[in-house]
Structure formats: C-alpha cells, structure tokens
C-alpha cells in the first residue's frame, strides 16, 4: 500500500520499476522475426503479387473491357435502328409526294385537253 508521506516520488519510482516480460516473450518475438524472413511466394511474374491476385486483376480488366465493348455495340445498334427509321420515313414521304404529283399531273392534262376542244369532252373531276 502507498504510504502518505513527503517522499511520494520515491514510492512512485519504486512501484513503477520495470516488470519482467511474460514468460517466452523473446521466443515469440524470434518466431515472428523468423517468419518475416521466410521468402515470400512472389508468383510467376515476380512482381511481388501472388498468382491469384494477378488472376483477379486480369478478370476485372477483362470484365471492364467486355462491358465497354457491349455498351459500344448497343449504342451502334441503336444508331442503326434510328437510321433505318429515318430512311423509312423518307421513303414513305417520297412515295406519297410522287403519288400526289402524278394525280396533279393527270388532272392538268385532262384540263388542257378540254380547253383545246379536241375530241370528246372529258368532264373535269373538280367541276360540279
């Protein structure tokens, strides 16, 4: 027990003297040192990374590249579909225009023949 007197500091020094380390401490330290000194398995590439880590890294890179290619393919397909739709729309518009043009052309020819008085009078469609 701590005595309450003026020489508290010597008492403190006495009670805080270095203790002994637990039994077998040095052996445990030396075992860890020996374990550290064992050559590490460095893998076939020898860059200090085990083979399995290289395999995981390769798989990750391959997955990223495949993902990028797939996205690019989808974008290309979408572009193709959009282009086809535009072409179809243009084709439909073109056909309609041609049809209208033919009808207008035919109507003009009938009107011209009627005015010249040649042959039988073909009634113009627009007349009542």
């Amino acid at each position, binding site marked *: 027990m701590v005595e309450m007197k003026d020489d*508290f500091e010597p008492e403190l020094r006495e009670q805080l003297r270095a203790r002994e380390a637990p039994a077998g401490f040095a052996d445990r330290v030396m075992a860890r*040192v020996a374990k550290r000194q064992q050559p590490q398995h460095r893998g076939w590439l020898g860059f200090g990374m085990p083979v399995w880590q290289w395999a995981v890294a390769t798989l990750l890179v391959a997955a990223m590249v495949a993902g990028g290619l797939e996205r690019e393919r989808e974008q290309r397909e979408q572009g193709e579909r959009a282009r086809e739709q535009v072409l179809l729309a243009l084709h439909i518009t073109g056909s309609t225009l041609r049809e209208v043009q033919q009808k207008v052309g035919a109507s003009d020819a009938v009107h011209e023949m009627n005015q010249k008085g040649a042959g039988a009078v073909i009634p113009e469609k627009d007349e009542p």
Partner: protein
Amino acid sequence: MDHSQKTFRDLVERHQGRVFSIALRIVGESGAAEEVAQDVFLELYRALPGLESEEHVTAWLRRVACHRATDALRRRAVRGYAAAEEYQDGMELRPAVRDFLPLMNRLEQLLLTLPPAQRAVMVLRYQEDLEPEDIATEMKMPLATVRSYLQRGVKMLRAKAQRTLKEYSRG
C-alpha cells in the same frame, strides 16, 4: 549494429522488461501490451542496421514503445473498448475496471486514469528514471509541457492514492 539473430535475441532479452512495462503502463492490459512490445521489437529488427550503439537502441526502444502504445490505446478507444474509455476520462477507475487489471499494483492502476501522453511522460520519468530534459528530447515535446505533465501527474496521483488510503483505513 550487428544484425545477426543471436545479437538480436540478446537485445530482446535485455530490453524486453523495459519495453513490455512501458506498453503495459500506457495500454493498461497485458495482452495488448505484449502485442505492442512484440511489434516494437520487430520494428527494431528492421531499424537495427541504422542504430549505432546500445544507448541509441535503448533511446529508440523507449521512444517507439511510447508512441506505439499510445497509438494502440487510441485505436482501442476508437473501437469502443469500455476500459480504454474509462482510462481517458481522468476519473477514478471503477471497481469493474480495476478487476480487469488484476496484475497491476494500485499506483499502476491510478496511472491509467491520466491522459495517455501524460502517462507516457510519467513512465519515462519514474520507470526509466529520465530527466525532464531527456524526456522532452525523446518525445519531441516542449520542456515546459513535460514539467507541467510531471507536476500535475504527481499531484493527481498523490491525491488519488491518499483518497484510496483513507477509504482503505475506513474499511
């Protein structure tokens, strides 16, 4: 210094008590203290070629043991160990925490109620018998801080020890 296993083992055997005690009095738990002490010696093994003499090794061990033990204590506090929280509040240890430290004497237990940096300074002064100037140099602390830690640390421990003694005599 010589890096052979034999030389290193001799060093471990000569300094193991010192390093383990510093760690124990800062961390406050035997298992954690041994872990810290082992890590310090592994670090010494790597640093040995750069150390010139036994005095240099001793100073290096004191400094690194204090720092690693303080780091370990901080990590334990972050992980939420109840005892570590208790040490840092500056109050008296609760009986439950005292039971957690059966191997420590009363003054060692009271030391754990001081903040970690102050604990380290007290250990270097009273376990290692270093002068305040040497502690300031080794711990890279202002001398005034070291003196203040020591003065307040002794005062607090004295007051707490006195209170314990009174409680003890009252039965």
